[in-house]
């Protein structure tokens, strides 16, 4: 069974909410990145989003843009991330979702990309510049049991598109909390609660909320309508501020998870 789906089924039976983090691959360096992933598994992160850096991250705010840029300067590329995950999989079973832009996949070769993901154990894909209508090319290679699931994104203005997006969706549904890009300070969309409830109501699979979340408090009011949440920009900033101190990173995860499930 796909690691994401297995993990989410387990959480459901325990009546727990999922805690998902995002980190840019290759920071502080490849080795450090691998250590942090292992530490996250120990601390209880349920699913890990691993960002493949791209030169033009149009769906990302300043924090992830900057992280992406720094990682590229350090020489991070898809092949090196594949190598790192391959090694990691000897001792780590945390579900991993690649968050990446479509050009990186096109350039690598779509079929070869999916095969490599299946081979080394990438469990899901989030591609923010590949809307439903453009997914056909990629989906033709995703049928296999071992292949990653394609995570569907839903926005506050998706409205009548929601049934189409949810049909055949796998893994979880990624609800973005606000318009625009990751890591905004401006707060959630004004109708966020109704919107989440509507998606939750129509979805057969777990619903996660992301964009602009820093602490468990931020999701307190909408907790009953979601199955978990995703922390990206804040998590990257926190790691940077903590100079990638493993204990500080673990403490943040443990604390967040505790509050999320209180």
């Amino acid at each position: 069974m796909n690691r994401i789906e297995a993990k989410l089924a387990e959480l459901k039976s325990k009546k727990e909410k999922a805690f998902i983090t995002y980190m840019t691959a290759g920071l502080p360096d490849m080795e450090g990145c691998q250590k942090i992933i292992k530490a996250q598994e120990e601390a209880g992160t349920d699913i890990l989003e691993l960002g493949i850096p791209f030169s033009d991250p149009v769906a990302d705010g300043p924090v992830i843009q900057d992280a992406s840029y720094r990682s590229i300067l350090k020489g991070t590329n898809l092949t090196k991330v594949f190598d790192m995950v391959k090694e990691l999989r000897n001792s780590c079973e945390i579900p991993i979702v690649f968050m990446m832009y479509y050009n990186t996949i096109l350039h690598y070769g779509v079929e070869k990309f999916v095969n490599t993901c299946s081979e080394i154990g990438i469990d899901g894909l989030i591609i923010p510049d590949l809307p439903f209508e453009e997914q056909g090319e990629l989906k033709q290679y995703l049928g296999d049991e071992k292949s990653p699931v394609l995570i569907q994104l839903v926005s506050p203005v998706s409205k009548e598109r929601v049934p189409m997006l949810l049909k055949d969706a796998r893994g979880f549904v990624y609800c973005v909390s606000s318009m625009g890009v990751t890591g905004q300070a401006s707060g959630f969309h004004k109708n966020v609660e109704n919107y989440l409830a509507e998606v939750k109501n129509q979805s057969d699979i777990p619903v996660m909320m992301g964009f602009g979340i820093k602490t468990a408090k931020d999701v307190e009011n909408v907790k009953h309508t979601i199955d978990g949440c995703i922390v990206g920009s804040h998590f990257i900033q926190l790691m940077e501020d903590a100079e990638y101190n493993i204990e500080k990173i673990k403490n943040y995860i443990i604390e967040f998870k505790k509050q999320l499930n209180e």
Partner: protein
Amino acid sequence: MSKYYGEFGGQYVAESLMNTLEELDKAFEEAIQDPEFWKEFDYYMKEYVGRETPLYFASRLTEKYGPKIYLKREDLNHTGAHKINNVIGQILLAKRMGKKKVIAETGAGQHGVATATGAALFDLECKVYMGEEDISRQALNVLRMEMLGSRVLSVSSGSKTLKDATNEAIRTWAKEAEDTFYVIGSAVGPYPYPKIVKTFQSIISKESKKQILEKEGRLPDSVMACVGGGSNSIGMFAEFIEDKDVELVGVEAAGLGIETGKHASAMALGIPGTLHGMRSYLLQDEDGNVELAHSISAGLDYPGVGPEHAYLRDSGRARYVSITDDEAMEALLELCKLEGIIPAIESAHALAHCFKQAKEMKKDQIIVVCLSGRGDKDCHTIQEYLTGNKEALNK
């Protein structure tokens, strides 16, 4: 309605923009069916932009090179280039859609100035995104936009140039689409933008076709235009695409030479990719990151190209060539001296190719070149270039 040009085009944008694009597509298709919309567009083209622009017979160039050379004088438009045609069209569309604000990206500042101009004319709030590098290189255009009442926002991410200014405009659009219209400056971006830009720029070839038939009683043998994103060229080609005997030639910037890697010829390498909402040919490195374009002409300095051009190339209907910085500058100076016209460096790329190809053509053949803009904005660049190449001026 297909959103693709062969395998190119499409809508590679965030889910949150899909409804926005649908709304735009609907509004655009309705507008172009509405005679009132075109009446208003034509009014501003004539009374404000100063159309129609002449199709000028360049007698001294013709004398020197052989075939008859005609120049479509887009440089004589208000604001000095073809960019205003598209901006007026898109802003009329924005008004029709009830939008109160517009945003735009700009590289050298020409599209920014055109958008600021349109926004002033129609009383819309306007923000222009411009790379930090470009802001310092194009101080005069920044001043122009500010005089016209627009805000110029400095973009300091990535390469700090047009590519990143476009990223930032897309990010802002994703946030503010409810009341904001994104005025894209070239024949690029997610569908329907390439179609919108082509529709409004096709006024160039509509006029040219009528004018050449009046003057020569026949269609030209060859039509040429420079290609960055490809808006003046798609406008210059549009009405001739169905006339299979008319050769269409797009001229990209070869910068310091294709072999140096410092160029802006997305077509020359022919590697497809996705950027700024579209699938097209794209300059990229071995990891699939977008590579910086290089050209002495800021307006051609773009790593991608409009999707319809990619399709015209692959289908063989149009031919794409490239011209180096040096070749373009030589052609620019020649036009100054032989015809008394200072062209934009962008347009000089098309001219340079025209001079090359003319040598292989017969005297009774006809070439139409789109002179997309005037060179006043480039005088500083030209001065710097000449300081380093004294011999160029005396050639």
